[in-house]
Structures are given as C-alpha cells and as structure tokens.
C-alpha cells in the first residue's frame, strides 16, 4: 500500500495521494458505517477485468480515500459467501452464474455491474486435430472447469449436435492436457489458454459460442442484497473506485505494468507477467468491442441478459424463467455516471 495512507483517524475525511478530498464528510460517514467490506475475486488475483481494477483501486488508495475499508480475498464459493453475508461484494463469471445462483440457494445476492457483453469462454482444439465442424465433436473428450457452461451446450444444440454425445470431463487449470492429447478439446477463457498454448508454440483453433449465435456476458460484480440496500453509497463508491482504476490502468502501458506488479505481489509466486498482460489486454478488448450503445462501462440492462436467461431455461439449469429485474440492481451503477455517461469523480 504505497499510496492513500494519509488519514488514519476515523473521523477525518481522508485525502487522495494528490491531497485532494474525494468525498464529502457526510458520505464518508455513511461509507464508514458499512464497516469492513470483503471483496472476493472471481479467480485468484488474475489479470482479469473486475479483479485487476479492484486491486489497483485498493493500491491507488481510492477505496480508502472514499472511506471504504475493503479486504480483497481470492474467491471460492463466491455466490454462497455473498448470499450468506460472509463477503459483501464478489465477482462472478457471467450473468448466468448470477441467475443460477439466485435460482438455487444463493437468493440473497444481486448483480451490480456487468463488464463484458459477450462471452469470455470458448472451446479450444488443436489446429491439426481434424475437428473441423461442431459435428466432429461427437464422441470426443472435452475438458471443462467445474461445470459445463450453458454457452457450450447451447452452441452445440443450436447447431444440431447433441451435447450428450460428447464425453465431458472436469479438468484442472492446466491447458497442457490439450496438446498432450488427454482431451481433444478444452473449455477455455478467450483471454488465457489460447495465449498460453500459442506462447508454448502450439497451433490451436478456437470455437467461440458468439460465432455460433450464442449471446452471453462476462464478469458481473454481485452484492449481498440486504447489505447493498443498507449501504448504497458504499456500493456506489466501490464501483466508482474500480472503474476509475480501470481507466487508470488503461491510461498507459506503464500503469498496466504497475498494476500487474501489485497483483503479482498478492499472488506471491508463479505469476506470469507477460501472459497476464496479454490476458488483461484481451479482456479489455472484449469489453470494449461488445459495449452496447448507450450504456457506460459496467452498466447492465434486461435486454443484455435476456439471451442467457432463455438459454438457462432451455437447458434446464434453472427450474423456471428467472426474473432479470430482480437479479439486477442498477441503482448503484447508474448513480456513478453523469447524464453524459462519464464517471462522476470525485464522489459527491
């Protein structure tokens, strides 16, 4: 924590690194009343959107300057932890994850921001695998992480391939099993595994559900519903700080390197800086390329989630059609943007 440590007393409004005040005394009081906030990343301290920007917001002192006491934790069972109130804010993979969680036992959470408006996942095959169409997947072994995504099922089913003819196997996070031949195809993040494998000199082919008409999203931040209602300013200012940091990272290559250095410090070991940089850049591009007209970064709408909600019903991952309205709480994200769609900085 190199910056933003100017204030240690609880009553005074802290100032940012440049000495300016970022928040009113009254709002600062409200944010402090929220107490300690635990934020869970969606996947360790990876260089992903919704993670690296929060790390940077913390390191840059934005969070503290906005009178927020946030502890960052690598996530695990995020939906459960947020719904139970053990954590207050967390990242989830996509809008689908939010709706599935709400349909099961994590009813007590809502989405507060959606970063990407296209899917971030895809299937990889080796370039010379002889798999040239979706139909060729029948009978092949396909690795997935944790659970088979609805996007994959939809991609196959919408194009006339019965997903149950595929031999799905749950795999770890090492993509090497694809070139080693243990699986013929591998569920992957667009921003990670293709880069890793290409960097190792392999020729891989990508099967993007978006290309087959499957619409989805990636990285939504969720909040514990009651806690969010009780502390709206804290939620708003958390998002405000993240998105300010998001812009800061993208402002220069040097800033990105600095942010990656912070993530690496938190990861202690094994953090591949080059791959991580590529990962961030890929994801930012995915976010930018899919930004719907009229919506600012992170803003979400019913239309945007509709295709995923429909797919969940189609593939019976939820018992009944989920209410998108109830799944989203847009009051926070909408409050941090001005009428011109620019981030309100500093906080009121």
């Amino acid at each position, binding site marked *: 924590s190199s910056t933003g440590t100017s204030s240690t007393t609880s009553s005074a409004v802290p100032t940012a690194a440049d000495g300016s005040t970022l928040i009113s005394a009254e709002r600062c009081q409200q944010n402090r009343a929220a107490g300690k906030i635990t934020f869970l990343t969606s996947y360790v301290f990876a260089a992903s959107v919704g993670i690296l920007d929060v790390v940077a917001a913390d390191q840059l002192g934005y969070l503290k300057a906005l009178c927020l006491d946030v502890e960052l934790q690598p996530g695990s069972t995020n939906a*459960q932890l947020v719904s139970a109130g053990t954590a207050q804010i967390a990242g989830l993979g996509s809008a689908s994850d939010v709706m599935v969680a709400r349909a099961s036992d994590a009813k007590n959470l809502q989405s507060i921001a959606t970063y990407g408006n296209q899917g971030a996942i895809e299937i990889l095959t080796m370039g010379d695998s002889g798999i040239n169409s979706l139909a060729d997947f029948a009978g092949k072994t396909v690795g997935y992480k*944790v659970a088979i995504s609805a996007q994959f099922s939809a991609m196959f089913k919408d194009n006339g391939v019965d997903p149950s003819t595929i*031999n799905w196997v*749950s795999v770890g996070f090492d993509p090497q099993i694809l070139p080693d031949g243990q699986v013929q195809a591998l569920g992957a993040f667009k921003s990670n595994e293709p880069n890793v494998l290409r960097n190792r000199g392999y020729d891989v082919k990508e099967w993007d559900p978006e290309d087959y008409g499957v619409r989805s999203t990636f990285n939504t931040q969720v909040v514990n519903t009651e806690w969010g209602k009780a502390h709206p300013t804290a939620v708003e200012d958390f998002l405000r700080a993240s998105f300010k940091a998001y812009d800061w990272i993208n402002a220069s290559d040097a800033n990105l390197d600095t942010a990656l250095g912070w993530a690496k410090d938190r990861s202690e070991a094994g953090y591949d800086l080059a791959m991580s940089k590529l990962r961030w850049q890929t994801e930012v591009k995915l976010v930018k390329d899919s930004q719907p007209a009229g919506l600012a970064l992170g803003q979400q709408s019913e239309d945007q989630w509709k295709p995923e909600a429909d797919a969940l019903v189609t593939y019976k991952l939820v018992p009944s059609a989920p209410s998108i309205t109830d799944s989203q709480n847009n009051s926070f994200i909408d409050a941090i943007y001005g009428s011109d769609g620019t981030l309100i900085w500093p906080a009121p």
Partner: protein
Amino acid sequence: MSALTTTTPRRADRTSTGRRLGELAAPLVFFVLLALAWQWTAYHNRSLIPPIQAMVTDLSSRPDYYLAQLWETLQSALIGLVIGVSIAFALAVGIVHVRALRTAVMPVALLINVTPIVAISPALIVAFGFTRTPHIIVVAIVVFFPMLINATVGLSSVDPQAMDVFRTLSATKGDVLLRLRLPSSLPFVFAGLRLSASTAMLGAIISEFTGTSKGMGASIMLATSYLNLAQMWSMIFLSALTSLALLGLVAVAERMVIRW
C-alpha cells in the same frame, strides 16, 4: 443377626431393561437435538446448509440420479479398496519375511500417508487420463497405509509358543504363512479393513473433484458451483452412510470369517 445387611442384587440384573432402553434413547435424543440444531441453522442462514426436508425432497424426486452417482463412486471405491488392500497385504507378507523390505517400504509408506493426496490427484489425471484409473489409484493410495500397518502387525503377532511348535516340525515358510500367520493376522487384517473401508469412499469422492463429470465427487463440485445445497449435502450424507454401510459389511464379514 439383625445388624447383618441384606446385600442388594446385582444392579445389572435389576436395571438391565432400563439400561438397554437408555442405550437406545441416548443416541436418539442426541440425533434429534442435532437435527433441531441443523434446522435452526438452515433457516437462520439459508445459503449455509439446506433444511432436512429439502434434502429429502431432492433425494426422493430423483433417486436414479443419486444412485447413478453413488454407483459410479462406489465402483471406484471398491476396486481401489481391493487393489490397495491387496498390495498392502502382499507387501506385509514380504515385510515379515524380508527384513530389508520393511526398512525400505515403511518410510516411503509413512511419507505417502502424510502427503495431501488431494493435491496429487490432478497429476494422476495427467498421467492416466480421463479414465477410472486415476480415481482407483487415489483410493488405493488412501486405503494402503492402514492395511499395511495392520497386516504387518497381524502377520507378526503369532503366538510364539505355537511358532515354536511349527519350527520344531521344520514347517516350511509356506506352512507357517498359510497355517499360522494368516489366520493369526485375521483380526488385525479386519481392523485394517475397517479403517481402509472408512476412507475408501472419501478417497474416491476427493479424486472425483477433478477428471470426471460422473460420481459423487463431481456432483458435489457441481452442486458447489451452482450452490445447490440440497444436492451437495444429500451427496455428503449419502457418502457418509455408504461408508457406514461398508463398515457394517466388513463387520459382518469379520464375524463370518473369525468364528473362534
């Protein structure tokens, strides 16, 4: 003789019926209290644990799903159990005959026993692919140590005086093994089998966290990610009950085999 006190009959006789009732009642009362505490917690924190009726409903609404996962896991558990226990027993036979084998095998066995197997299981999948093999190996590893220790102790724990009789008869090593060591070891072997049987399902489930989409372990993983608490905890309880059933089977087998 009036000062002589009439001694009371043995307490065990007087209250044996009452005591037997008490023995049944105590665990029942305790289980009921536990169930109440469970329900209170479930209603208090909806995303921590599911209420009991949610598990019952889920189990009874799709028994074939649960049975299919159970059967999948049970197969790995049983095959791994048989393999691990057999290798351990064979090694124990070697150990009691070749002293050097003991000093060679035991440190390694001890090391394996204190290694976090769950961390190794991804490597096994890399090595053996997406077959049942890695899951069987994990089970075999976790059941190996208790059986090795118990079989070694059992095969060595022969009545020395009976051993003297065999030795004066110049009994062959095979005679001693078959007619003395093996039957003598049975109580220990069954004790080891009980320990092994209670970890076999655990090993299978942990190994199924990766490398498969079938079985109770995969189902628990899936339920965790979809936060399907009813499914998750039904599986957990089902696996615990299956382990208890395995333990019961071992106990029955023991009573049938050891009749002396």
